[in-house]
Protein backbone atom coordinates (compact mmCIF):
# COMPACT_ATOMS: atom_id res chain seq x y z
CA UNK A 1 0.00 0.00 0.00
CA UNK A 2 0.89 3.66 -0.32
CA UNK A 3 0.80 5.28 3.08
CA UNK A 4 0.19 9.03 3.31
CA UNK A 5 0.47 10.77 6.66
CA UNK A 6 -2.17 13.51 6.70
CA UNK A 7 -1.32 17.11 7.42
CA UNK A 8 -4.04 19.02 9.16
CA UNK A 9 -4.46 22.13 11.29
CA UNK A 10 -7.29 23.78 13.17
CA UNK A 11 -9.63 20.85 12.61
CA UNK A 12 -9.25 20.84 8.84
CA UNK A 13 -7.41 18.66 6.41
CA UNK A 14 -4.48 20.60 4.90
CA UNK A 15 -4.25 21.19 1.17
CA UNK A 16 -0.89 19.38 1.41
CA UNK A 17 -2.72 16.11 2.10
CA UNK A 18 -4.78 16.44 -1.08
CA UNK A 19 -1.57 17.18 -2.97
CA UNK A 20 0.03 14.03 -1.56
CA UNK A 21 -2.94 11.99 -2.74
CA UNK A 22 -2.37 13.32 -6.27
CA UNK A 23 1.33 12.45 -5.98
CA UNK A 24 0.35 8.91 -4.97
CA UNK A 25 -2.12 8.59 -7.86
CA UNK A 26 0.40 9.91 -10.39
CA UNK A 27 3.28 7.81 -9.08
CA UNK A 28 2.21 4.65 -10.84
CA UNK A 29 2.87 2.68 -7.64
CA UNK A 30 0.28 0.04 -6.97
CA UNK A 31 -1.94 -0.69 -4.03
CA UNK A 32 -4.56 1.16 -2.05
CA UNK A 33 -3.95 4.79 -1.18
CA UNK A 34 -4.13 4.87 2.58
CA UNK A 35 -4.23 8.08 4.60
CA UNK A 36 -3.13 7.98 8.24
CA UNK A 37 -4.67 10.68 10.41
CA UNK A 38 -2.79 11.35 13.66
CA UNK A 39 -4.24 13.69 16.27
CA UNK A 40 -6.99 14.21 18.77
CA UNK A 41 -10.63 14.85 17.86
CA UNK A 42 -9.87 14.22 14.24
CA UNK A 43 -13.04 12.49 13.05
CA UNK A 44 -14.07 15.39 10.80
CA UNK A 45 -10.57 15.41 9.29
CA UNK A 46 -10.73 11.65 8.72
CA UNK A 47 -14.02 12.04 6.89
CA UNK A 48 -12.52 14.74 4.67
CA UNK A 49 -9.59 12.42 3.92
CA UNK A 50 -11.89 9.48 3.18
CA UNK A 51 -13.37 11.39 0.25
CA UNK A 52 -10.10 11.10 -1.69
CA UNK A 53 -8.49 7.92 -0.28
CA UNK A 54 -9.10 4.20 -0.66
CA UNK A 55 -8.91 3.85 3.10
CA UNK A 56 -8.27 6.02 6.12
CA UNK A 57 -6.54 4.89 9.31
CA UNK A 58 -7.37 7.01 12.32
CA UNK A 59 -5.35 7.33 15.52
CA UNK A 60 -7.41 9.63 17.72
CA UNK A 61 -5.37 9.83 20.93
CA UNK A 62 -4.60 12.39 23.65
CA UNK A 63 -0.87 11.71 23.17
CA UNK A 64 -1.26 12.90 19.60
CA UNK A 65 -2.92 16.20 20.51
CA UNK A 66 0.25 18.06 19.56
CA UNK A 67 2.87 17.20 16.98
CA UNK A 68 6.12 15.68 18.20
CA UNK A 69 8.85 14.39 15.89
CA UNK A 70 9.53 11.19 17.83
CA UNK A 71 5.85 10.28 18.32
CA UNK A 72 4.95 10.99 14.70
CA UNK A 73 7.94 9.00 13.45
CA UNK A 74 7.00 6.03 15.66
CA UNK A 75 3.37 6.13 14.54
CA UNK A 76 4.15 6.35 10.82
CA UNK A 77 6.76 3.58 11.11
CA UNK A 78 4.45 1.22 12.96
CA UNK A 79 1.62 1.63 10.45
CA UNK A 80 4.00 1.35 7.48
CA UNK A 81 5.32 -1.93 8.86
CA UNK A 82 1.93 -3.39 9.79
CA UNK A 83 0.41 -2.40 6.45
CA UNK A 84 3.50 -3.47 4.50
CA UNK A 85 3.62 -0.10 2.78
CA UNK A 86 6.07 0.13 -0.12
CA UNK A 87 5.77 3.92 -0.30
CA UNK A 88 5.41 6.32 2.63
CA UNK A 89 4.48 9.87 1.67
CA UNK A 90 4.85 12.70 4.18
CA UNK A 91 4.25 16.43 3.67
CA UNK A 92 7.18 18.71 2.94
CA UNK A 93 6.25 21.09 5.74
CA UNK A 94 8.74 22.05 8.44
CA UNK A 95 7.44 19.25 10.66
CA UNK A 96 7.19 16.72 7.83
CA UNK A 97 10.81 17.21 6.84
CA UNK A 98 11.71 16.97 10.51
CA UNK A 99 10.27 13.54 11.25
CA UNK A 100 10.43 11.87 7.82
CA UNK A 101 14.20 11.20 8.10
CA UNK A 102 13.53 9.40 11.39
CA UNK A 103 10.95 7.21 9.65
CA UNK A 104 13.48 6.43 6.90
CA UNK A 105 16.09 5.37 9.47
CA UNK A 106 13.57 3.28 11.43
CA UNK A 107 12.42 1.50 8.27
CA UNK A 108 15.99 1.29 6.90
CA UNK A 109 14.53 2.90 3.79
CA UNK A 110 15.96 5.37 1.29
CA UNK A 111 14.55 8.87 1.53
CA UNK A 112 13.54 11.11 -1.36
CA UNK A 113 13.25 14.56 0.16
CA UNK A 114 11.00 17.41 -0.89
CA UNK A 115 10.15 16.13 -4.34
CA UNK A 116 8.10 18.00 -6.92
CA UNK A 117 7.30 14.94 -9.03
CA UNK A 118 7.01 11.24 -8.36
CA UNK A 119 6.91 8.27 -10.69
CA UNK A 120 7.77 4.61 -10.72
CA UNK A 121 10.73 3.85 -12.97
CA UNK A 122 11.20 0.10 -13.16
CA UNK A 123 11.82 -1.11 -9.62
CA UNK A 124 12.83 2.38 -8.54
CA UNK A 125 10.85 5.38 -7.46
CA UNK A 126 11.96 8.56 -9.15
CA UNK A 127 11.39 12.16 -8.19
CA UNK A 128 12.64 15.63 -8.94
CA UNK A 129 13.85 18.06 -6.34
CA UNK A 130 15.30 21.53 -6.27
CA UNK A 131 18.89 21.94 -5.14
CA UNK A 132 21.50 24.72 -4.96
CA UNK A 133 19.09 27.31 -3.56
CA UNK A 134 16.45 26.08 -5.99
CA UNK A 135 18.54 26.96 -9.02
CA UNK A 136 18.98 23.35 -10.10
CA UNK A 137 16.41 20.60 -10.56
CA UNK A 138 17.88 17.19 -9.87
CA UNK A 139 16.25 13.89 -10.70
CA UNK A 140 16.84 11.35 -7.96
CA UNK A 141 15.78 7.77 -7.57
CA UNK A 142 15.85 5.02 -5.01
CA UNK A 143 14.56 1.53 -4.63
CA UNK A 144 13.79 -0.78 -1.79
CA UNK A 145 10.97 -2.73 -0.27
CA UNK A 146 9.90 0.64 1.07
CA UNK A 147 10.81 4.21 0.13
CA UNK A 148 10.06 7.30 2.23
CA UNK A 149 9.17 10.50 0.38
CA UNK A 150 8.38 14.07 1.37
CA UNK A 151 6.44 16.12 -1.17
CA UNK A 152 7.06 19.82 -1.66
CA UNK A 153 3.94 21.85 -0.90
CA UNK A 154 2.32 23.35 -3.97
CA UNK A 155 3.88 20.91 -6.45
CA UNK A 156 0.82 18.79 -7.15
CA UNK A 157 -2.80 19.69 -7.78
CA UNK A 158 -5.21 19.01 -4.94
CA UNK A 159 -6.93 15.65 -5.39
CA UNK A 160 -10.67 15.54 -5.95
CA UNK A 161 -12.86 12.54 -5.09
CA UNK A 162 -12.58 9.63 -7.51
CA UNK A 163 -15.14 6.99 -6.67
CA UNK A 164 -16.74 6.13 -3.38
CA UNK A 165 -15.40 7.39 -0.07
CA UNK A 166 -12.81 5.09 1.53
CA UNK A 167 -13.51 3.05 4.65
CA UNK A 168 -12.25 4.39 7.98
CA UNK A 169 -10.51 2.19 10.54
CA UNK A 170 -9.25 2.97 14.02
CA UNK A 171 -5.66 1.91 14.68
CA UNK A 172 -3.80 1.15 17.89
CA UNK A 173 -0.36 2.55 18.39
CA UNK A 174 2.51 2.05 20.80
CA UNK A 175 4.00 5.48 21.22
CA UNK A 176 7.17 6.67 22.98
CA UNK A 177 6.91 9.38 25.63
CA UNK A 178 8.04 12.69 24.13
CA UNK A 179 11.38 13.83 25.53
CA UNK A 180 11.21 17.43 24.42
CA UNK A 181 9.22 19.51 26.88
CA UNK A 182 7.36 22.41 25.29
CA UNK A 183 7.34 25.29 27.76
CA UNK A 184 5.60 27.88 25.66
CA UNK A 185 4.12 28.40 22.27
CA UNK A 186 3.42 31.43 20.20
CA UNK A 187 1.15 30.86 17.25
CA UNK A 188 1.57 33.49 14.61
CA UNK A 189 -2.04 34.10 13.88
CA UNK A 190 -3.05 35.84 10.77
CA UNK A 191 -6.48 36.66 9.53
CA UNK A 192 -5.09 36.00 6.08
CA UNK A 193 -4.51 32.82 4.13
CA UNK A 194 -1.41 30.89 5.15
CA UNK A 195 1.51 31.63 2.83
CA UNK A 196 1.93 28.02 1.77
CA UNK A 197 -1.76 27.74 0.91
CA UNK A 198 -2.26 31.15 -0.71
CA UNK A 199 -2.90 31.39 -4.41
CA UNK A 200 -1.87 35.04 -4.48
CA UNK A 201 0.89 36.51 -2.31
CA UNK A 202 1.84 40.14 -1.89
CA UNK A 203 5.37 40.51 -0.52
CA UNK A 204 6.99 43.69 0.71
CA UNK A 205 10.70 44.42 0.71
CA UNK A 206 12.77 47.18 2.20
CA UNK A 207 11.75 49.42 -0.68
CA UNK A 208 8.31 49.72 0.88
CA UNK A 209 9.96 52.21 3.24
CA UNK A 210 8.55 51.71 6.74
CA UNK A 211 6.36 49.44 8.89
CA UNK A 212 3.50 51.91 8.42
CA UNK A 213 3.86 51.78 4.65
CA UNK A 214 4.01 48.00 4.85
CA UNK A 215 0.56 47.97 6.45
CA UNK A 216 -0.78 50.56 4.07
CA UNK A 217 0.59 49.13 0.83
CA UNK A 218 1.39 45.45 1.28
CA UNK A 219 -1.45 44.53 3.61
CA UNK A 220 -3.73 46.97 1.81
CA UNK A 221 -3.15 45.32 -1.56
CA UNK A 222 -3.31 41.82 -0.03
CA UNK A 223 -6.69 42.63 1.49
CA UNK A 224 -7.97 44.02 -1.79
CA UNK A 225 -6.91 40.81 -3.59
CA UNK A 226 -7.66 38.30 -0.83
CA UNK A 227 -3.96 37.41 -0.80
CA UNK A 228 -1.39 36.21 1.74
CA UNK A 229 1.37 38.54 2.99
CA UNK A 230 5.08 37.85 2.61
CA UNK A 231 8.24 39.73 3.57
CA UNK A 232 11.93 39.70 2.71
CA UNK A 233 14.57 38.97 5.28
CA UNK A 234 15.65 42.61 5.25
CA UNK A 235 12.16 43.55 6.44
CA UNK A 236 12.07 40.79 9.06
CA UNK A 237 15.56 41.66 10.33
CA UNK A 238 14.49 45.28 10.65
CA UNK A 239 11.64 44.13 12.89
CA UNK A 240 8.88 45.40 10.61
CA UNK A 241 7.29 41.98 10.17
CA UNK A 242 7.25 38.57 11.93
CA UNK A 243 9.57 35.82 10.78
CA UNK A 244 6.55 33.69 9.85
CA UNK A 245 6.09 35.92 6.82
CA UNK A 246 9.65 35.57 5.54
CA UNK A 247 9.99 34.04 2.11
CA UNK A 248 13.32 32.62 0.96
CA UNK A 249 16.14 30.25 1.74
CA UNK A 250 15.78 30.74 5.46
CA UNK A 251 12.07 31.46 5.31
CA UNK A 252 9.20 29.80 3.55
CA UNK A 253 9.10 28.34 0.07
CA UNK A 254 5.99 29.34 -1.82
CA UNK A 255 4.61 28.61 -5.29
CA UNK A 256 1.45 30.67 -5.67
CA UNK A 257 -0.35 31.43 -8.89
CA UNK A 258 0.73 35.05 -8.54
CA UNK A 259 3.58 36.49 -6.46
CA UNK A 260 3.53 40.26 -6.29
CA UNK A 261 6.83 41.70 -5.05
CA UNK A 262 6.78 45.33 -3.90
CA UNK A 263 10.15 47.01 -3.36
CA UNK A 264 12.02 43.69 -3.39
CA UNK A 265 15.49 43.63 -4.99
CA UNK A 266 15.45 39.93 -5.87
CA UNK A 267 18.49 38.52 -4.05
CA UNK A 268 19.22 34.82 -4.75
CA UNK A 269 18.24 33.83 -1.23
CA UNK A 270 14.86 35.43 -1.76
CA UNK A 271 14.42 33.97 -5.24
CA UNK A 272 15.09 30.49 -3.88
CA UNK A 273 11.85 30.75 -1.91
CA UNK A 274 9.55 32.21 -4.57
CA UNK A 275 11.23 31.61 -7.93
CA UNK A 276 8.83 28.76 -8.77
CA UNK A 277 5.73 30.94 -8.54
CA UNK A 278 3.60 30.59 -11.64
CA UNK A 279 3.51 34.34 -12.24
CA UNK A 280 5.90 36.85 -10.75
CA UNK A 281 4.92 40.49 -10.67
CA UNK A 282 7.49 43.06 -9.60
CA UNK A 283 7.15 46.72 -8.78
CA UNK A 284 10.45 48.45 -8.20
CA UNK A 285 11.75 51.91 -8.94
CA UNK A 286 15.09 50.57 -10.13
CA UNK A 287 14.80 49.23 -13.69
CA UNK A 288 18.03 47.26 -13.08
CA UNK A 289 16.75 45.38 -10.01
CA UNK A 290 17.45 41.62 -10.42
CA UNK A 291 13.80 40.82 -9.61
CA UNK A 292 12.82 42.03 -13.09
CA UNK A 293 14.91 39.22 -14.65
CA UNK A 294 12.49 36.65 -13.24
CA UNK A 295 9.32 38.72 -13.57
CA UNK A 296 6.40 37.98 -15.87
CA UNK A 297 5.05 41.47 -15.35
CA UNK A 298 7.03 44.41 -14.11
CA UNK A 299 6.29 48.02 -13.36
CA UNK A 300 9.22 50.39 -13.01
CA UNK A 301 7.85 52.93 -10.61
CA UNK A 302 7.51 54.20 -7.07
CA UNK A 303 5.57 52.08 -4.57
CA UNK A 304 4.05 55.23 -3.09
CA UNK A 305 2.38 56.03 -6.39
CA UNK A 306 1.71 52.66 -8.03
CA UNK A 307 0.34 50.68 -5.09
CA UNK A 308 -2.41 53.12 -4.05
CA UNK A 309 -3.54 53.20 -7.68
CA UNK A 310 -3.50 49.41 -7.75
CA UNK A 311 -5.53 49.12 -4.55
CA UNK A 312 -8.01 51.63 -5.90
CA UNK A 313 -8.30 49.90 -9.28
CA UNK A 314 -8.64 46.41 -7.80
CA UNK A 315 -11.65 47.51 -5.76
CA UNK A 316 -13.51 48.41 -8.90
Amino acid at each position, binding site marked *: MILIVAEHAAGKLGKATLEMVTAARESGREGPITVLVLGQNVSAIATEAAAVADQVLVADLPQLATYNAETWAAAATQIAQEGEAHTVIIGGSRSGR*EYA*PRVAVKLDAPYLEDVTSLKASGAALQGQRYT*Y*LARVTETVE*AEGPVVVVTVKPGSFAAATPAGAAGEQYDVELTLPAPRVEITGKSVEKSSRVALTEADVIVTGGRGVGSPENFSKYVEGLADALGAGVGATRAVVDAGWRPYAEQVGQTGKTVQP*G*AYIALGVSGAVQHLSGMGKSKNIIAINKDAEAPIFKVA*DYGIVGDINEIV*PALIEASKR
Partner: protein
Amino acid sequence: MNILTLVRQVPDAEARVKISQQAVDLDGTTLVVDGMDEYGVEEALRMRESGAGVEQIIALAIGPKRNEDALRTALAMGVDRAIHVETNEQFDAVTLSKVVAQVAQAENVGLILVGGQEADWDSQALGAASAERLGWPQLTWTNELKLDGDTLSGRHDVDDGNESFRVTLPAVVTTQQGLNEPRYPTLPNIMKAKKKELRKDDAASYGLQARVRTVGAEIQTRARRNTMIDGKDPQAAAAQLLELLRNEAKVLA
Protein backbone atom coordinates in the same frame (compact mmCIF):
# COMPACT_ATOMS: atom_id res chain seq x y z
CA MET B 1 30.74 17.06 27.60
CA ASN B 2 31.90 17.30 24.00
CA ILE B 3 30.03 19.13 21.26
CA LEU B 4 30.12 17.98 17.65
CA THR B 5 29.55 20.62 14.98
CA LEU B 6 29.04 19.65 11.35
CA VAL B 7 30.43 21.81 8.57
CA ARG B 8 30.21 21.64 4.80
CA GLN B 9 31.82 23.59 2.00
CA VAL B 10 29.24 24.78 -0.52
CA PRO B 11 29.06 27.19 -3.46
CA ASP B 12 28.82 30.84 -2.51
CA ALA B 13 25.20 31.96 -2.86
CA GLU B 14 26.07 34.40 -5.62
CA ALA B 15 28.24 31.92 -7.53
CA ARG B 16 26.94 30.64 -10.82
CA VAL B 17 26.21 26.93 -10.86
CA LYS B 18 26.87 24.95 -14.00
CA ILE B 19 25.96 21.49 -15.15
CA SER B 20 28.11 19.08 -17.06
CA GLN B 21 27.23 15.50 -17.82
CA GLN B 22 23.91 15.57 -16.01
CA ALA B 23 25.48 16.73 -12.76
CA VAL B 24 26.37 19.95 -11.01
CA ASP B 25 29.98 20.84 -11.76
CA LEU B 26 31.70 22.88 -9.06
CA ASP B 27 34.97 23.28 -10.92
CA GLY B 28 36.07 26.90 -10.63
CA THR B 29 33.14 27.84 -8.38
CA THR B 30 33.75 30.03 -5.31
CA LEU B 31 33.12 27.90 -2.24
CA VAL B 32 32.37 28.94 1.32
CA VAL B 33 31.39 27.34 4.61
CA ASP B 34 27.64 26.71 4.57
CA GLY B 35 26.23 29.71 6.44
CA MET B 36 23.72 27.56 8.30
CA ASP B 37 26.55 25.44 9.73
CA GLU B 38 28.46 28.53 10.85
CA TYR B 39 25.61 29.38 13.22
CA GLY B 40 26.19 25.96 14.84
CA VAL B 41 29.94 26.47 15.23
CA GLU B 42 29.36 29.92 16.70
CA GLU B 43 26.74 28.64 19.13
CA ALA B 44 29.05 25.87 20.41
CA LEU B 45 31.77 28.46 21.08
CA ARG B 46 29.30 30.73 22.86
CA MET B 47 28.07 27.88 25.05
CA ARG B 48 31.61 27.27 26.24
CA GLU B 49 32.28 30.99 26.70
CA SER B 50 29.12 31.34 28.79
CA GLY B 51 30.57 28.85 31.29
CA ALA B 52 28.62 25.73 30.38
CA GLY B 53 30.57 22.52 31.01
CA VAL B 54 31.88 22.09 27.49
CA GLU B 55 35.16 20.15 27.27
CA GLN B 56 35.89 19.83 23.58
CA ILE B 57 34.29 21.21 20.46
CA ILE B 58 34.93 18.99 17.47
CA ALA B 59 34.13 19.87 13.87
CA LEU B 60 33.24 17.10 11.44
CA ALA B 61 33.06 17.24 7.65
CA ILE B 62 32.19 14.39 5.33
CA GLY B 63 32.87 14.74 1.62
CA PRO B 64 35.50 15.72 -0.93
CA LYS B 65 38.84 17.34 -0.17
CA ARG B 66 37.43 20.87 -0.49
CA ASN B 67 35.75 20.42 2.90
CA GLU B 68 39.16 20.85 4.54
CA ASP B 69 38.66 24.57 4.02
CA ALA B 70 35.40 24.49 5.99
CA LEU B 71 37.18 22.63 8.79
CA ARG B 72 40.06 25.16 8.76
CA THR B 73 37.51 27.95 9.10
CA ALA B 74 35.84 26.19 12.03
CA LEU B 75 39.25 25.66 13.68
CA ALA B 76 40.09 29.33 13.17
CA MET B 77 36.76 30.34 14.69
CA GLY B 78 37.76 28.37 17.80
CA VAL B 79 36.81 24.70 17.68
CA ASP B 80 39.44 22.44 19.23
CA ARG B 81 39.95 19.79 16.59
CA ALA B 82 38.56 18.54 13.33
CA ILE B 83 37.74 15.24 11.66
CA HIS B 84 37.48 14.88 7.91
CA VAL B 85 35.88 11.76 6.50
CA GLU B 86 37.08 12.20 2.94
CA THR B 87 35.12 10.72 0.06
CA ASN B 88 34.29 11.72 -3.49
CA GLU B 89 31.22 9.58 -3.62
CA GLN B 90 27.94 11.43 -3.15
CA PHE B 91 25.92 10.07 -0.27
CA ASP B 92 22.41 11.13 0.68
CA ALA B 93 21.86 12.71 4.09
CA VAL B 94 20.25 9.63 5.64
CA THR B 95 23.30 7.55 4.70
CA LEU B 96 25.70 10.25 5.95
CA SER B 97 23.96 10.23 9.31
CA LYS B 98 25.66 6.86 9.91
CA VAL B 99 29.01 8.64 10.05
CA VAL B 100 27.67 11.37 12.30
CA ALA B 101 26.24 8.83 14.74
CA GLN B 102 29.42 6.73 14.83
CA VAL B 103 31.65 9.76 15.36
CA ALA B 104 29.34 11.11 18.06
CA GLN B 105 29.58 7.82 19.94
CA ALA B 106 33.33 7.42 19.52
CA GLU B 107 33.97 11.00 20.64
CA ASN B 108 31.65 10.92 23.63
CA VAL B 109 29.52 13.73 22.29
CA GLY B 110 26.48 15.06 24.16
CA LEU B 111 25.29 17.67 21.69
CA ILE B 112 25.39 17.83 17.91
CA LEU B 113 24.90 21.14 16.11
CA VAL B 114 24.19 21.15 12.39
CA GLY B 115 22.78 23.67 9.90
CA GLY B 116 19.03 23.49 9.35
CA GLN B 117 19.24 23.28 5.56
CA GLU B 118 22.17 22.60 3.27
CA ALA B 119 22.85 25.31 0.71
CA ASP B 120 23.86 22.77 -1.96
CA TRP B 121 21.45 19.86 -1.61
CA ASP B 122 18.67 21.89 0.03
CA SER B 123 18.28 18.95 2.42
CA GLN B 124 17.06 19.22 6.00
CA ALA B 125 17.53 15.55 6.82
CA LEU B 126 20.99 15.15 8.33
CA GLY B 127 20.16 16.33 11.86
CA ALA B 128 16.98 14.31 12.22
CA ALA B 129 18.46 11.14 10.72
CA SER B 130 21.51 11.39 13.01
CA ALA B 131 19.25 11.86 16.03
CA GLU B 132 17.24 8.76 15.11
CA ARG B 133 20.36 6.63 14.67
CA LEU B 134 21.57 7.69 18.10
CA GLY B 135 18.12 7.36 19.66
CA TRP B 136 18.28 11.02 20.71
CA PRO B 137 15.65 13.76 20.60
CA GLN B 138 16.11 16.61 18.17
CA LEU B 139 15.26 20.28 17.96
CA THR B 140 15.16 21.83 14.52
CA TRP B 141 15.17 25.45 13.31
CA THR B 142 16.40 26.82 16.64
CA ASN B 143 16.85 30.55 17.03
CA GLU B 144 17.68 30.76 20.74
CA LEU B 145 19.68 28.28 22.86
CA LYS B 146 20.87 28.15 26.46
CA LEU B 147 22.86 25.32 28.01
CA ASP B 148 22.67 24.88 31.78
CA GLY B 149 24.31 21.68 33.05
CA ASP B 150 22.79 19.05 30.82
CA THR B 151 19.57 20.98 30.30
CA LEU B 152 19.21 22.72 26.98
CA SER B 153 16.45 25.25 26.62
CA GLY B 154 15.58 27.64 23.84
CA ARG B 155 13.17 28.55 21.12
CA HIS B 156 12.59 27.17 17.66
CA ASP B 157 10.30 27.64 14.67
CA VAL B 158 7.49 25.20 14.01
CA ASP B 159 4.81 24.99 11.32
CA ASP B 160 2.52 27.62 12.77
CA GLY B 161 4.80 29.84 14.82
CA ASN B 162 7.44 29.12 17.41
CA GLU B 163 7.86 27.18 20.64
CA SER B 164 10.01 27.41 23.73
CA PHE B 165 11.43 24.07 24.74
CA ARG B 166 13.52 22.25 27.32
CA VAL B 167 15.34 18.98 26.79
CA THR B 168 17.91 16.93 28.64
CA LEU B 169 21.06 16.17 26.66
CA PRO B 170 22.10 14.29 24.62
CA ALA B 171 20.30 15.86 21.68
CA VAL B 172 20.71 17.01 18.09
CA VAL B 173 20.02 20.65 17.28
CA THR B 174 19.71 22.29 13.87
CA THR B 175 20.58 25.95 13.57
CA GLN B 176 19.46 28.85 11.44
CA GLN B 177 19.56 32.57 10.82
CA GLY B 178 18.73 34.64 13.89
CA LEU B 179 20.47 32.31 16.37
CA ASN B 180 23.64 34.41 16.51
CA GLU B 181 26.11 36.38 14.42
CA PRO B 182 29.03 34.09 13.55
CA ARG B 183 32.43 35.60 14.33
CA TYR B 184 35.14 36.18 11.74
CA PRO B 185 38.35 34.27 12.41
CA THR B 186 41.11 36.69 13.43
CA LEU B 187 44.59 36.43 11.96
CA PRO B 188 46.16 35.10 15.20
CA ASN B 189 43.43 32.48 15.39
CA ILE B 190 43.94 31.51 11.77
CA MET B 191 47.65 31.01 12.61
CA LYS B 192 46.81 29.00 15.73
CA ALA B 193 44.37 26.87 13.77
CA LYS B 194 47.19 25.62 11.56
CA LYS B 195 48.59 23.74 14.55
CA LYS B 196 45.30 22.15 15.55
CA GLU B 197 44.55 18.54 14.75
CA LEU B 198 42.73 17.80 11.49
CA ARG B 199 42.30 14.04 11.47
CA LYS B 200 41.58 12.18 8.26
CA ASP B 201 39.28 9.21 8.53
CA ASP B 202 38.78 6.51 5.96
CA ALA B 203 35.21 6.64 4.65
CA ALA B 204 35.25 2.90 4.00
CA SER B 205 35.46 2.17 7.73
CA TYR B 206 31.97 3.65 8.24
CA GLY B 207 30.19 1.11 6.06
CA LEU B 208 28.37 3.55 3.80
CA GLN B 209 26.23 2.56 0.90
CA ALA B 210 24.50 5.29 -1.13
CA ARG B 211 20.75 4.70 -1.26
CA VAL B 212 19.68 7.61 -3.44
CA ARG B 213 21.04 8.05 -6.97
CA THR B 214 21.12 11.34 -8.84
CA VAL B 215 20.25 10.54 -12.44
CA GLY B 216 19.94 14.01 -13.89
CA ALA B 217 20.42 17.71 -13.20
CA GLU B 218 19.18 20.76 -15.01
CA ILE B 219 19.52 24.46 -14.41
CA GLN B 220 16.04 25.65 -13.78
CA THR B 221 14.93 28.56 -15.82
CA ARG B 222 11.27 29.00 -16.33
CA ALA B 223 10.59 31.14 -19.37
CA ARG B 224 9.15 34.37 -18.07
CA ARG B 225 6.99 36.77 -20.02
CA ASN B 226 9.00 39.82 -18.97
CA THR B 227 6.20 42.20 -19.94
CA MET B 228 7.29 45.63 -18.72
CA ILE B 229 4.75 48.30 -17.95
CA ASP B 230 5.69 51.96 -17.81
CA GLY B 231 5.02 53.33 -14.34
CA LYS B 232 5.01 57.02 -15.25
CA ASP B 233 1.25 57.16 -15.25
CA PRO B 234 0.40 55.19 -12.07
CA GLN B 235 -3.32 54.88 -12.77
CA ALA B 236 -2.78 53.61 -16.29
CA ALA B 237 -0.05 51.21 -15.13
CA ALA B 238 -2.28 49.81 -12.36
CA ALA B 239 -5.19 49.32 -14.74
CA GLN B 240 -2.99 47.65 -17.34
CA LEU B 241 -1.42 45.28 -14.79
CA LEU B 242 -4.79 44.19 -13.41
CA GLU B 243 -6.11 43.64 -16.92
CA LEU B 244 -3.09 41.41 -17.75
CA LEU B 245 -3.39 39.47 -14.50
CA ARG B 246 -7.09 38.88 -15.08
CA ASN B 247 -7.18 38.15 -18.79
CA GLU B 248 -3.71 37.01 -19.84
CA ALA B 249 -2.26 35.30 -16.77
CA LYS B 250 -5.73 34.51 -15.43
CA VAL B 251 -4.57 34.62 -11.83
CA LEU B 252 -7.10 37.14 -10.56
CA ALA B 253 -10.86 36.82 -10.70
